[in-house]
């Protein structure tokens, strides 16, 4: 079991009642971001209603892997301007 720290933004901070959460997940070298997203939604079902964008080490990714220690950020759609 490994622990991934996930930074949250916008409405997600209200769903999780926090701007950073820890996910305990089981993986060896790395875990796919889609799998990570599924874990997050399992913990916070309301996030299923939000179109999530995931950044690993400050780069948006639609697929790919995260490793322990990576900086993971999950965001809802942008609404600046």
């Amino acid at each position, binding site marked *: 079991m490994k622990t991934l720290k996930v*930074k949250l*933004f*916008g*409405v997600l901070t*209200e769903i999780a009642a926090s701007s950073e959460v820890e996910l305990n997940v089981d993986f060896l070298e790395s875990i796919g971001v889609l799998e990570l997203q599924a874990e997050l939604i399992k913990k916070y079902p309301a996030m299923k209603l939000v179109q999530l*964008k995931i*950044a690993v080490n*400050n780069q948006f990714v639609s697929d790919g892997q995260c490793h322990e220690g990576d900086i993971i*950020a999950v*965001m*809802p*759609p*942008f*609404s*600046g*301007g």
Partner: protein
Amino acid sequence: MDKRKVKSLFVEGPIPPTRLSDSIAHHEHKTNIGAHALFLGQVRADSIEDQVVSAISFTAHEDMANQIYSEIREEAFSKFEMTCAHVYHSLGIVQTGQLCFSVFTSSARRKMALEGCEFFVEQIKARVPIFGKEHFASGETQWKINS
């Protein structure tokens, strides 16, 4: 001044109108400029289900926002012949009627200033991780959804 130096997109609170006129006045010595284009986003008192917006508070993934803004600047300067561009977005509370977003581009030619300005506006709205939360007079809030 290197027009491409890394700049922060963000200012705390509303953008004061005098900041813009000062900015315009500072360009008076740049006599290679023929045209300026400005876009200003103002917080609107939208009605949403019988409630009226009184303010928007903005948060952002600041590091990524500034990094993406910097990429947008690179793209803008390679696409449009501009002498300079000044872009700001508010963080924190901005009341209705106040400015939360400003884009100011300058060029020898009007087409380049106008098109460059619009490019910044559209790209920043679409690509920069900023999140607005609408505040109602009742104290209730709702996360903003861009149309």
